[in-house]
């Protein structure tokens, strides 16, 4: 009897142990089997953003995009960017091949080039649900309106400004120039040491030459419809003036202009957009130099100022975008979001958006050089004209510069060059039309 009870107990014990182990093993292994799991990955909406600019702009814009994606994790933003030189050509390739980014930083002139009928870009009025248009006045929106359609919103207003290395001027006992003659006098002094009064890019050079033409002739170089208004004789005189600027050490040849030459004081001053103040004013100040600002030189008795203003840059949405809602959210973020506004500061100039101004006012906007330059611009409002797009047409600028080079390097006479330049510009304008 005793043996039987013991045997029964052992059997019960092993059965219970086996049950327990079986249960545990089943719990462990059934975790991976027997059930079917479905992993779903919500695809993001991918949109593209494109812009041009300098290093600082590239870096803060990418940082802003990262922040935007944190706010909208279901939107993935890829980007294209580059420096201004050549960017117009890249944009032309993208636009003509219908391969442009969803959200684009555009130049004011491109509205005429790609959307003269208002169809080239998305009508932002249709996206007012996502874009806070109340931050812009009707006048500001008018800059981006074509054929009644709001194609773009301005980021900032821009005009040209001159910055001089005051230490260099002091070294030569010079004052800030007010007239063209002042510039030539300065060139005579600096030229003795093979230094130049001004250095600038090809594009700024063209506008400088235009301002002289308009001051001296009292006429615009381009008509409001974009056609060339200057005669060949006047172009001849203009080319000769351009050469005199170089020969008189007023203007450094654009091909040899290097920012480092300006920063080192070899070139005393520069002309740039207000939006480039960070590079040419603040950058020079960071080297320890004293920087002075002044406006255009004037010709005594001039009937026109030759000063232009424009929206510095604008944000637009591609008319081909498949994701207008997401694109509009990104555009609104770029213009009005506090984080982005603080990242951007006045790098593109003093912002137009009321919201952005409010935010930057708290950050000391009025102390910035950009703000001071724009304030000065506003004081001369009566002299400012809205820029004619062809003034910034890179092909036209190249035609002028390359034609003028023939004269500057004595490969042709001024008359011959003027003929070529006028013909080429007219061909370009006709081609654009």
């Amino acid at each position, binding site marked *: 009897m005793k043996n039987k009870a013991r045997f029964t107990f052992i059997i019960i*014990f092993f059965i*219970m*142990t086996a049950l*327990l*182990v079986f*249960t*545990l*093993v089943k*719990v*462990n292994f059934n*975790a991976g089997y027997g059930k079917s799991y479905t992993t779903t990955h919500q695809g993001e909406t991918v949109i593209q953003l494109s812009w041009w600019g*300098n*290093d600082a702009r*590239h*870096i803060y814009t*990418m940082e802003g995009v990262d922040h935007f994606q944190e706010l909208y994790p279901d939107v993935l933003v*890829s*980007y*294209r*960017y*580059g*420096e201004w*030189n*050549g960017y117009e*050509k*890249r944009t032309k*390739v993208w636009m003509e091949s219908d391969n442009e980014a969803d959200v684009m930083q555009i130049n004011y002139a491109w509205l005429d080039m790609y959307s003269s009928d208002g169809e080239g870009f998305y009508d932002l009025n249709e996206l007012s649900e996502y874009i806070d248009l109340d931050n812009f006045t009707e006048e500001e929106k008018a800059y981006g309106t074509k054929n009644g359609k709001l194609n773009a919103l301005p980021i900032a207003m821009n005009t040209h400004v001159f910055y001089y290395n005051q230490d260099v001027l002091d070294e030569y006992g010079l004052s800030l120039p007010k007239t063209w003659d002042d510039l030539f006098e300065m060139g005579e002094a600096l030229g003795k040491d093979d230094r130049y009064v001004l250095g600038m890019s090809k594009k700024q050079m063209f506008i400088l030459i235009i301002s002289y033409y308009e001051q001296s002739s009292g006429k615009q170089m381009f008509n409001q419809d974009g056609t060339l208004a200057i005669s060949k004789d006047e172009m001849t005189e203009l080319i000769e003036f351009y050469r005199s600027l170089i020969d008189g050490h007023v203007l450094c040849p654009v*091909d040899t202009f*290097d*920012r*480092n030459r300006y*920063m080192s004081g070899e070139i005393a001053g520069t002309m740039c957009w207000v939006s480039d103040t960070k*590079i040419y004013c603040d*950058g020079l100040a960071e080297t320890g130099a004293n920087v002075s600002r002044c406006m255009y030189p004037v010709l005594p008795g001039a009937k026109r100022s030759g000063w232009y203003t424009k929206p510095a840059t604008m944000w637009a949405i591609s008319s081909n975008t498949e994701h207008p809602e997401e694109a509009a959210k990104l555009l609104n973020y770029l213009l009005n979001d506090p984080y982005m506004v603080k990242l951007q500061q006045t790098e593109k100039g003093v912002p137009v958006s009321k919201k952005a101004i409010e935010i930057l006012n708290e950050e000391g906007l009025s102390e910035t050089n950009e703000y001071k330059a724009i304030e000065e611009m506003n004081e001369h409002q009566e002299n400012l004209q809205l820029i004619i797009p062809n003034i910034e047409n890179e092909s036209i600028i190249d035609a002028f510069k*390359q034609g003028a*080079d023939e004269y500057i*390097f004595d*490969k042709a006479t001024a008359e011959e060059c003027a003929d070529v330049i006028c013909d080429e510009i007219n061909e370009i304008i006709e081609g654009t039309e």
Partner: protein
Amino acid sequence: MSDKNRKRERSDERFRLFQYEVLFVFAMLIIIVTAFLDYIILDRTGQAMQEKVSDLIAANSRQLELNINSYLERMETTPTLLFSDEVYYLYDETDEKMEDYDKVKNEETIKNRIVDIGLMDNYSDFGIVFADDHKVGWVSHGTQDLFKDGGIYDTFSSYITNPKKNDGWCFGVNGNSDRMYYIKRLNPNAILISSIYTRELASVFVYPEQLDEMTIRLVDDENTIMYSSDDSEIGEKLPDEILKNIEDEFFDAGNSSSIVTRDYLINTNVCFNGWRVVCSVPTDIILKENQELKSFTLRISGALAMMFVLVGLVIITKLSKPMDGMVSSLQDKAEIDRLSGVMNKATFQESVENELKKEPSDDLVVFVMMDMDNFKQINDRLGHSYGDQVIIRMGKLLRKLYNNQTIIGRLGGDEFALYTGCKDVPIEDIKAAAIERMEQVIEAFSEEFEYEREQCELSISAGVYIKEVSGTDFKDLYEKADSALYISKNNGKSCYTFYGEEAEDDEK
């Protein structure tokens, strides 16, 4: 409560305790066995998981390597488009014999080419630098500002480390860590510099189903981090805990490999230019689910063990009810003489010996041996069954006469024994009490067995031995009392004799 009852309860208590001990041991055994099995199973699962994750990361890292290789190859291929025309790559701005006009025209041509080529990617630099530091194309302000005192050409020329292809890669130029450069020599006095922002690599290093806390890095030949999913690391050296594993011989073989250490799972893939993609993830992150499973399983095991104990308790309770008293009954059967109801000889001896050893001990003991006179005639004349009845009645009589302080035993046949311990009582009083008690026994016996005395002359004789506890034992008590009994028998029976007084004729 009688000693017997207390003894019975103690026996039952000991049995229940034994049951609980068995249950506890089994429960512990179950826990240990299941914990051991769990450990084995989960350990193997953990290892399998590590291997699978390692394989998965290795496969994904391989894809990253292919991505970055593809990206870097494109970075190398694009500049070669400058070799499509001699004007682009043979132009030497430092050639003093060349007229300025030709230089301007050549540079315009080159700029246009760069603009066309630059369409291919987001370059932060794409330009040509000549031996006199003159620049054509896109050489950014950021790069120019690294060389405010000149030396841009010489510095970048020194990074051309591949003599066959006349090119090279560099990072951390003059402390800059936001871009990586590719340098290609165009002619003895001109190099092409192209660069991208390292954060651009985020689009290359998109990791499918990225593990939490996994860090993806691109490091150069000197283990400087050029890109990291953790931005704060860029420009720093690889962390020591990663580096020490990277520097193992295993990794120095140059192969793309992975290793699982106690702290990290690390995977490295070598790019075609010698840079490495290094992915690392803390091991405990990989095993997080396994740890959770282990914890869950242990909880389940504990719960099951508890359940086992509870079920065991219920079973024990159910089983023990019918067994209640069985143990004590069995014990009684083993210890109590079935006829007389007093202790059998073995138990009586054990009890007496225990009493003799107990602390504090008694001073004196009274040991009595009793034997019925002429009991044989009862069996012969009245039958054995009647004899058994006599024994039964004798047991009852003794139990009636003696209280619990006296141990009563039947030593065999018609022989009984009594043991009583006394403390702090003078021996004279004890002896007087013993005499009185023996008189009572003889009288009670005479009354109880009157019929038997008339029929068979049944009577009782006794031998009494009073002794100090020290220096005695059961054998001594038994022999001395027995010898006194023997004297009583010889002296005519139906009397009692105190041991040691027979010489004085002390019989009654």
